[in-house]
């Protein structure tokens, strides 16, 4: 775990750049992480997913899987991949300032 500076804020991140302490997050940090990961602008649809991820994590301690995102966030899986190319669940978690989702076993 290391400290780093994102959008002028000191935050704790893991080796892959996921915030390890969700309380250090803010919207500027989200926008910066998004830009660093090839999402140039966070639209309302992006925010819908990011906030859903974050709220769910803070309430339950686990981040939703891509499947639950598709079922519950109101954004279908195909669109999730357009919004967050490659790995929507991971990228939305990163932007939302929550730890990297663990694949369940």
């Amino acid at each position, binding site marked *: 775990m290391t400290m780093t500076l994102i959008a002028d804020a000191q935050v704790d991140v893991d*080796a892959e750049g996921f915030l390890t302490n969700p309380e250090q997050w803010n919207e500027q940090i989200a926008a910066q992480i998004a830009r660093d990961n090839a999402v140039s602008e966070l639209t309302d649809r992006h925010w819908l997913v990011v906030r859903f991820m974050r709220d769910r994590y803070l309430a339950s301690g686990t981040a939703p899987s891509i499947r639950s995102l598709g079922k519950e966030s109101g954004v279908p*899986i195909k669109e999730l*991949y357009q919004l967050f190319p490659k790995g929507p669940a991971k990228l939305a978690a990163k932007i939302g300032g929550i730890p990297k989702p663990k694949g369940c076993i």
Partner: protein
Amino acid sequence: MARKQIVILGGGTGGTMTANRLRRRFDPDEAEIHVVDRDDRHVYQPGLLFVPFGLAQLEEIVRPRRRQFRNGLVFHENEVDEVSIEGDEVRLDDGTVLPYDVLIVATGVQLQPEETEGLTGPGWNERVFTFYSPEGAEGLRGALERFDGGRLVVNLVDMPIKCPVAPLEFAFLADWYLRERGIRTRTELVYATPLDGAFTKPIASEHLAGLLAEKEVELVTEFNAGEVDGVGGKLGAYDGRDLDFDLLVTIPLHGGAAYVERSPGLGDALGFVPTDKQTLQTTAKPNVFALGDATDLPTSKAGSVTHFEGEVLTENIVRYFAGKELDSSYDGHANCFIETGFHKALLIDFNYDTEPLPGHFPTAVGLPLLRESRLNHLGKLMFQWVYWHALLPGREIPGIGPAMPSTGKKHTPVPT
């Protein structure tokens, strides 16, 4: 005092074992125990893996559910229509109403191949198969017999699935089978997974990826299958990647039993039942418990897990009735043999906090962990006998308790 009513939904591994254990803990005049299942076919699910290769027959692995119950249980062969959490009762499809003092949800998961676009369309059960159902496994046996080389793709659509190691075992056994038949050189074997490695836990994942490479199975990671063209032989991922196949072995999406979604307050969006990790009491209501694949617990959906959970669950039903504090000792213990072909197998043993490690099980002089051996293969074969004759009847297996043993394991720092 009126007899306690205990209703168990599901007569599979968890339901049968729990019904039999509770029958021993309570006298017939203390508690009436009902078990509900929609059919009378108890499948020894670990056996399904062997059916496609002709190494097991369906007749051997399917037995009547009724025959696995102790005397003094009431079995209802019927679908569950709905559970009323508020009214403490279960309604069955034929209109029967079963009021309960304690409900145990043990209905496992159902396969949902229709949730993936095109999966059950043209080509389904012709060049697209799953070995996760008896019929699918039998169909795949025929398809493998007719298979004469080409691209064989094994794909798990998304977690969670039952027995997360089974798709890997299928790839290992397919490699062996194809070599025996002399057509391995003209077969490309591909393993496509949504995970970022062969398996979820780092040390085991590395071992298993090494085995795939050794057996010349191509590993494709972070592949989230979204679409299947069973006629054209194409498996498409949401990110735009395509995999061509001549034969596709799919592990479809899993969800909870259909009635869970119909019953307000019982399950989550995928039909799994939110359950306390340590006590197995659900969050739905204090008199509702769950075990096995039906729960949302962050551990493997596997018979071994259900078995270990069962001991804690049974104790907690007794404590619940006695008004005592629940036992919160379930640690997420799971234990799986992984068939690797050529009469060998690996064994992994882990829990919520400890990932699968090398060493020996259950103590330093037991079966080798995370290493291929003939002994593990024999263990896997022998386990079927243990399942029918010790596990389901609810007998203890000497030397194997619910908590994960640590003594035989080599603890090395986990890479973070």
